């Protein structure tokens, strides 16, 4: 592993972490506003988080 690779991997993790964190936070907010829709919000949250995670992993393997 060279230094650019390591820095790139770090950036990917930061980006994916920020993205998933935002999804989680917004989902919490949405559930607090509308507790009755929590099931639907959770599903959508998990799908979005999984998609970001997938891209994060793909980039990590490329790095």
């Amino acid at each position, binding site marked *: 592993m060279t230094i650019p690779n390591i820095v790139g991997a770090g950036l990917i993790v930061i980006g994916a972490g920020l993205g998933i964190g935002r999804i989680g936070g917004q989902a919490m907010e949405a559930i607090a506003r509308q507790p009755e829709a929590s*099931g639907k919000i959770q*599903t959508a949250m*998990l*799908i979005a988080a*999984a998609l970001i*995670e*997938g891209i994060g*992993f793909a980039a990590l393997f490329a790095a």
Partner: protein
Amino acid sequence: MQKSTVVKILLIFILIFTSSNLFAKETEKEGKGDLKSEIKEFINHHLQDSHDFTLFSDKEANSHVGFPLPVILWDNGLKVFSSSKFHHGETVAEVDGNFYKLYHSKIYKTDAAGTITYDEEHHATNAKPLDFSITKNVVSMLLIGLLMFFMFRGLAKSYKKNNSIPTGVGRFLEPLVLFVRDEIAIPNIGEKKYKKYMSFLLTVFFFIWFLNLLGMTPLGVNVTGNIAVTFALALLTFLITNLTANKNYWGHIFWMPGVPTFMKVVLAPIELLGVFIKPFSLMIRLYANMTAGHVVLMSIIGMIFLFKSWIGSPLSFGLAFALSILELLVAALQAYIFTMLSALYFGMANEEAHH
């Protein structure tokens, strides 16, 4: 033999091996040497598939406890022999005048002395016979397949008698089957067409979940963290999505309705790429999640042996315990997400025109 007895025997079998392995871990690493690289090697070895089921091994005493598995090769004819002939890669196996050697978990054809030639990048250049061996991963998958067969056959049979109330393990499975139907299949595929896909979704959900859970036992198998396995699972989703797709789906890919003609030309290659990226991301997600989970967990367990102090070691034990619980959640979550996204893709392929 009754089916419940078979299930019980399977469970006892798993328990025995699990506990014996736990016991072994304590006595395992006593040697001095370079502990760090030893742990690294141990983790790398764990992540890979292997030709024998080694439960634990002691390098210094050179003893391996486990059982060999059949090796099936196609090399100008079928060659079947036991992997005990390799002696864990130390000796050359001779079969009908041909010599084979295990090198980095791969089988190469060699001469009688077991010479392995390398190119500049230190890759072995020996001929590789086609390998259809029943490896550790294959055994695990067969075991889970058998377990699932007995469990779900029991559930299915119980609907015939006993006023359609499932008994035993079926009581645990029925809500999960209903969950896959009501929370995954129907919302994503729709009331009309979901039945066609239920068998695949249920199979894939329980298969991935049980294999993930099997990876959490100290048996040391890592099936869903093997890219070939996840590739096969994603390939099935890819084939089912595209073979059952309707006209509307292909229309949205090659000639997107409702956008200017120029954009239609631009969008077509992107959408076509998306057809392949969707199952590709399924493959990478499951593989990377399970591999990452195993690496992190084993590294933290390895830290116990690195610290060797009253503060560090209990700390990493506690961390490993907490992470194990997290991994149990991840095991279910990844099975759920794989099934969910598969259902989503099936739903996309079956959407009717609505404008």
